[in-house]
């Protein structure tokens, strides 16, 4: 698989590590979240056959986190965004 890095251009997926579902960006506030919210955030995943949005970390590159939209049946990648842009757009400050 080739991941089209927004800053670095096309890179081999072997340079990255996968961290799973991008829903992990939406971490509940540990001070206020209920047990159920924290449990579901940490342990439950949608895991669909088809399109997923997931986190990839460019460990062997510029160490940025990306949100990659990919199809789990065909491995086709349709969009790559900087995770920080996605997080900010969702109201996260950092």
């Amino acid at each position, binding site marked *: *698989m080739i991941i089209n890095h927004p800053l670095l251009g096309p890179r081999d*997926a072997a340079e990255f590590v996968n961290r*799973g579902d991008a829903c992990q960006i939406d971490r509940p506030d540990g001070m206020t979240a209920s047990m159920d919210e924290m449990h*579901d955030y*940490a342990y439950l995943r*949608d*895991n669909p056959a088809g399109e997923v949005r*997931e986190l990839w970390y460019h460990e062997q590159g510029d160490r940025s986190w990306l949100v990659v939209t990919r199809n789990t*049946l065909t*491995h086709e990648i349709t969009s790559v965004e900087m995770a920080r842009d996605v997080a900010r757009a969702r109201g996260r400050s950092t």
Partner: protein
Amino acid sequence: MRYSALKILTQGLTGNKGWTPVWREPEPQAEYDIIVIGGGGHGLSTAYYLAKEFGEKRVAVLEKGWLGSGNIGRNTTIIRSNYLLEGNQPFYEMSLKLWEGLEQDFNYNAMVSQRGIMNLIHSDPQRDAFVRRGNAMRLSGADAVILDRDGIREKAPFLDFDNGRFPIQGAIWQPRGGTVRHDAVAWGYARGADSRGVDIIQNCEVTGFQIENGVCSGVETSKGAIKAKKVAVCVAGSSSRVMETAGMRVPIESHVLQAFVTEGLKPVIPGVITFGAGHFYVSQSDKGGLVFGGDIDGYNTYAQRGNLPVVEDVCEGGMAIMPMIGRARLLRMWGGVMDMSMDGSPFIDRTHIDGLYFNGGWCYGGFKATPASGFCYAHLLSTGSPHPTATAYRLDRFRQGRQIDEKGMGNQPNLH
């Protein structure tokens, strides 16, 4: 029909005309006591033990493809009971004991071959960890031997003992580990279940559940609706997709694991050998092919094929411990979709929906569990209480803080 040496002889002398199909191909009935979804190893062994050990009479197995089309027919066939943790080791040791009596039990040649498994040690901390593991194994009644370099040389002189980066310092050896002919396991359980009245229905995909007021009373399938008092999901890599139709999210991701087979060679590999500094494991099939594999690819997928970086990684692992395999030509490679759980351990449990049960999360190691998984699932389904060796495999264990994380990797399925 009971199989025996005499049967083969008499059939051979009479033109082999008397063999009958190994199982029936029935149409589904309108209702069963227990429906098992998934005709892989675990589903078939569940049905077998339900009928044989627990006297259940009205059982069906629904399989969306053909028997053995899933991971039971795709794995590298290694069996062992070399786990560390309390929740796991007694269960896997029970499974190994069941393997030892399996062929007599279901009257079918599954080629159970206890040729031993050797996990190589490459550093001092690894030796400490393996000695500890060996003790845990022995406490559960399993066998474990720590080998020094000479002990390894006797069995596998061809290893690269003084490799510059990963010299071999020793190994943990489980003589009772080994390999089993995987498809024969599916066929043997299917035959044993069928002959005890279980309906095995192939090409029957479950598309949904009949759930009302928190009670499951049947399934929707490509062959119509079927009622059941209890519904037992057992679909390995498809766990999340099937449970989603019941409105449940499960602590599982689907990942691909690849396997490789070379051309047939004369006997060279004495048992199962695993590399301790990277991920590579190898055995030799009875036909002579070297069967090997390594890590999962590391990203969620339902495509039953992997990518090239892992091929390279696996082959590098092989070359690092046994350079002699570099000249063997690869014949085939394939992938299977696995149900990787959040702590690397499985589930055998009831769900919060009455009458709906779940078995899954077997990761890359569920083949060895096939007999015990079926036995324990059947126990839960029939008696209503978990089997004593499988009490830890609860769906709510993360909520309780009772993870069974052999590798200590945390909630990241691609690292287990």
